[in-house]
């Protein structure tokens, strides 16, 4: 875990990880992405990283996860002044309006529903990649 990443994807679903990885690979950006499978690991990663130099430019956060779920992780990251400015996009299967509003109020910059078509997937990844600019 020493290499710094630009996009941190926190999702326990290996298939979803693979789907995203495929898109990043197609875009030639797969080396900038790190995948972790729960919120606690994400927080540990942020603590281990060299503050200000190697912080990711975007955190993509799934909601339904073991150990520490998405909203808890979101709140913990937002409370820590060191990671205050790292943008977080919530990435979930559910398109529940209440859930969306809650995540935005907790400090997420966006709420993205996981794609169910190839084109949707392309759009989603394009949105993520814009944070690298």
């Amino acid at each position, binding site marked *: 875990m020493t290499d710094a990443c630009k996009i941190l994807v926190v999702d326990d679903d290996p*298939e979803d990880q693979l789907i995203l990885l495929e898109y990043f690979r197609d875009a030639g950006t797969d080396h900038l992405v790190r995948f972790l499978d729960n919120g606690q690991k994400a927080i540990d990663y942020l603590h281990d990283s060299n503050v200000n130099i190697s912080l990711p430019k975007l955190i993509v956060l799934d909601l339904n996860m073991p150990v520490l779920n998405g909203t808890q992780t979101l709140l913990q990251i937002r409370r820590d002044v060191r990671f205050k400015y790292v943008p977080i996009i919530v990435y979930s299967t559910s398109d529940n309006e209440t859930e969306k509003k809650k995540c935005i109020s907790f400090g997420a910059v966006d709420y993205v529903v*996981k794609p169910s078509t190839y084109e949707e997937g392309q759009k989603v990844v394009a949105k993520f990649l814009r944070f690298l600019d």
Partner: protein
Amino acid sequence: MKEIVCVKLENDMDLILAHKRAMKLCELNGFSLVIQTSVATAVSEIARCAIEFGDDAELVLGVDEAGRKKHLTAIVKDSTDFSLRCKEAVQYAKKLVDNVDIVRVAQQIQIVLKHELNFSHTLTQAKLDSFVDYFKREPPLSAYDEMRRKNLLLQELAEKVQKSELDFRVLTDSLPVMMFSANNRSVIKYANKWMQDFLGKVPKELSIISWTTFIHPEDFTRFSKEFSAALSKQIPLKSEYRFKEKLTNNFLWHLMSLIPLRDATDTLSQWTGCIVDINAQKQIEQTLKDNQVLREAQYRLIERQHELQRTVIELNRTNYELEQFAHLASHDLQEPLRKISFYSDVLKKKYATALDGAGVNTLNNMEKAAARMKELINDLLSYSELQKQNLDLEDVNLKTLINEVVKDLDVSVKEKKASIVIGDLPYVQGNPLKLRQLFINLLSNALKYSKTDIRPIIEIGGSINGNSVSITVKDNGIGFEERYKEKIFGLFERLHTKEQFPGTGIGLSICRRIVELHRGAISAFSVPGEYSVFQVSLPVKQELDFRTR
């Protein structure tokens, strides 16, 4: 004067009796035989005249006390003055006894004969009393005397009976109890004053009494059964009935007892009855009974409440499980489904060149299946979410709501070239989102089950009846058979194959659930091949406890 014995003077037999009694009293007083005879003769002389000329003569024999002297005294009394016609007898008597006086007392004439007693100090009060006793116990001097005595006795008894009867009447009349007696043919012979007053009848009327007029109609059948049983079996009757009080026209509870009286030969001679007011007692009894009933009702109510509480707990548990299911459906089922859709899309888009026509077809079919499953999951989710019973209510303008629904369905309305006729629709209290879902389902169904050969016409109308609003959605579609009118609202019920009409079979279940949550009712009727009508009735105002359900 101390009266010792008296003799009625009516005929010659009485004269003999008078003579004998006078003789005896003289003897008892210790006179010599000569004086006995003298006095008795004098008394007889006067008595004879009295019998002959008097009207209702009577002889009283006794002892008179004047100062220190005592006299044997005989008084012959009559209401008619016969003294003028017995002057001779009086003269004669004066020679035989010490003193003869003619006295007028009120309407009576009395001839008083006196003869002084010797050794009068020995004649004590007790001794005089013993003389009275002697004459009472004296054996009859003759058959006549015996008859005479018995007559006297009878007269005395008759007087006593009369007095006792009078006493009885006074007593029974002053009691606040109805008393009566009836002969063995149950004809009333006597009724006390209380009974006459209570029933408002004079004794004559009571003899032909008709019990129907006095006894409460509800008690009468029982009375008549018990009464005739008592009469025919000659057994006592004791039972409670309501009797009508003439004065107030109120029926009051009474205890009636009827007792058969038998004579010495054990045959029924008469009945005596009494009817006692027990209304107050009855009222207390009733109050106590009511209290008991109340307590029992209260107990049952508490039981019911407990039962309800248990049901509520059970329902809440079921609801919780359903919500858990909804959660499961929304996340865990949707997740793999989304991926199936996604992968098939990726295959089609990214690997299109690697697939032939049949492969693309297979993928399309897979996508359709996935889409159907998604629809099913979404419908189930909607249905499960309706188990959460707390609805936020507001006043909803149904006209606006249905116009919006029609706009939402614009695509299929245009596709089917349907015409939608919206009539007058009122405001109701309800949850706008749920009501919208209700009418989307009803209108989609109307569009879906239309006939292919004619233009669909869908009419929506409403009317208010009291506190209830009735909304009808009528189409000119394929309809359904009468026997399915309940079944169509069941979960997963479908009348057609998926090929004919795709769907999950949940839509109308959702409709029914939404209407029930609004405390309304939904029903459907149809003429197959002609039309279907769905009728929703909703309360205009929801009750206050609605939110706490």
